[in-house]
């Protein structure tokens, strides 16, 4: 177990290294420099500013310096937000994204699993068709369609929920963004759960449990569910990636001060260090989540041996 974790972490280092390298050179290949969109700087001043951030050196040297800094945990200063370091920006803004993402995935997990189990227990019944309809609609309607439509309905027409803004994380401001983020996840999770549950309910050990005379709820909750949600565990990584994509859209539409908003703006403004910091942060997050998913999988499924 520990060896497995250790090995995975060792593999994660070259992966992260690759991410840093690709992102670094892609960012630098972009036309335009970080300082040319402010006021027009005279060439001397621009040269001075470039020198201050070490960007007058050859690209390869800048790259090695950056790698060294990152290895020490120093992500450098932001090039646009003058007196802030990249770490500060990450620290100040991760909370909004985290709250949104965690709430969305928890709600989606609980609702999705419940709906999936109900559908599987009444396969081809009314509940089943209802859940499957929700699942298909949820997968087919992208976040950037649901978000504006919900704002139009609840914000502008009915005026019962605010159409945007963070407002210190007030519940009313959170409802719409979290709903938008959770909907596609509910769809996918209920679908996965239903498929897993149907398969497990036909397996031999469930028949055995029935033959023993166990009450149905115990069979479902204790025996079947554990195996049925296995596919969900491997879905953890992709779910996180999906939430990430979703949060880019949701934070833009609802005007929320999260990380997602920074990424696109920073990339467009050529704020190299902020973009790099964000790429590294999310890559690390996804790597860790994938590791956790694998560990959970092994805990839930005794047939899997970590080696």
């Amino acid at each position, binding site marked *: 177990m520990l060896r497995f974790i250790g090995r995975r972490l060792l593999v994660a280092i*070259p*992966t992260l290294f*690759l*991410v840093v390298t*690709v*992102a670094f050179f*892609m*960012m630098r*290949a*972009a*036309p335009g420099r970080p300082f040319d969109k402010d006021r027009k700087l005279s060439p001397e001043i621009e040269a001075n500013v470039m020198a201050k951030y070490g960007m007058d050196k050859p690209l390869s040297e800048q790259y090695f310096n950056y790698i060294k800094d990152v290895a020490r945990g120093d992500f450098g200063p932001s090039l646009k937000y003058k007196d802030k370091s990249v770490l500060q920006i990450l620290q100040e803004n991760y909370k909004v994204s985290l709250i949104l993402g965690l709430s969305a995935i928890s709600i989606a997990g609980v609702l999705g699993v419940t709906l999936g189990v109900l559908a599987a227990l009444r396969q081809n019944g009314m509940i089943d068709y209802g859940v499957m309809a929700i699942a*298909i*609609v949820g*997968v*087919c*309607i*992208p976040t*950037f*369609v649901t*978000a*504006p*439509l919900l*704002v*139009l309905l609840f914000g*502008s027409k009915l005026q019962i929920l605010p159409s945007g803004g963070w407002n210190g994380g007030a519940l009313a401001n959170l409802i719409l963004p979290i709903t938008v983020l959770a909907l596609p996840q509910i769809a996918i999770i209920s679908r996965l759960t239903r498929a897993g549950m149907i398969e497990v309910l036909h397996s031999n050990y469930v028949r055995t449990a029935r033959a023993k005379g166990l009450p149905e709820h115990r069979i479902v909750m204790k025996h079947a569910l554990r195996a049925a949600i296995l596919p969900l565990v491997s879905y953890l*990584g992709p779910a996180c*990636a999906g939430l*990430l*994509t979703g949060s*880019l*859209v949701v934070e*833009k*539409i609802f005007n929320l001060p999260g990380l997602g908003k920074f*990424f*696109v703006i920073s*990339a*467009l403004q050529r704020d190299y260090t902020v*973009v790099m910091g*964000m*790429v590294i942060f*999310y*890559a690390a997050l*996804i*790597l860790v989540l*994938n590791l956790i998913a694998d560990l959970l999988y092994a805990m839930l499924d005794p047939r899997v041996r970590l080696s």
Partner: protein
Amino acid sequence: MTGPILAPGSRAGAELMEKAVKGRSLWDDARRRLLRNGAAVTGIVVLLVLVAIALLGPLFTPFSYDQINKNDVWAPPLTAGHLLGADSLGRDLLARLLMGLRVSLAIGLVATLVSLVIGIVWGAVAGFVGGALDELMMRVVDVLYSLPFIFFVILLMVTFGSNIILIFVAIGAVEWLTMSRIVRGQTLGLKHKEFVEAARAAGLTQGAIIAKHIVPNLLGPVVVYVTLTIPAVILAESFLSFLGLGVQPPMASLGTLIAGGAQDMELAPWLLIFPSLTMVLTLMSFNFIGDGLRDAIDPKDR
């Protein structure tokens, strides 16, 4: 996956020919199952209609998609000759919607093709050659899988500016990963089959075996995955367009139209509603077809 060639017995030549004929009847079977699936048939019909109006529609609209009409700014649907209304520049929404649908479908198709080619070549080579090469190629896929890819697509678009070719390549380059895994898995199952051994005994090169015997037998699951990749690609493009990184105005895609509509929705809700409906209809029909195909080609999956 039940490919056409599963029956045991290896009486070479004539038998092989006969199997090829039988193989087609399995596809016939799949087609019959597909046509009995109401949702899938509806999906096919809706999609055909959408493709037809995307291709032919622009020929019949009284306005062109980029024609600015100063007098028709914010014209609601069914006024001033605009069936679906007009936008902030007085451009006809119907014309723009048809053009956007055409662009989105084209991107879906081309980018999927890109991912298909990369995925099949990568997966088939890895699975067929096996050994260290397989290990290496699949590790690469694993590593790429664990990256926040949307960031890289965004970086690509920012770096090289958004032109439509780059959108094809960028999205196609992201979507090939799953395809290569599916293809590799199938190839592993196929490569020890008798007909492959026969081909090898007949002296075919590895490349020829992959191209003539492995790839054609992979088609089932690949076709299913393709119909599910197209909507994913359309979605990815719209997402980029929504962030302002995709198709650039005055050109339109479903994503740019929805993004524009979302900005003006208080004043002109039709600009949001019609493009959204079209988008949902398109994605749904693809998903229905994909699900139907999966059930038809691999009935044991359900």
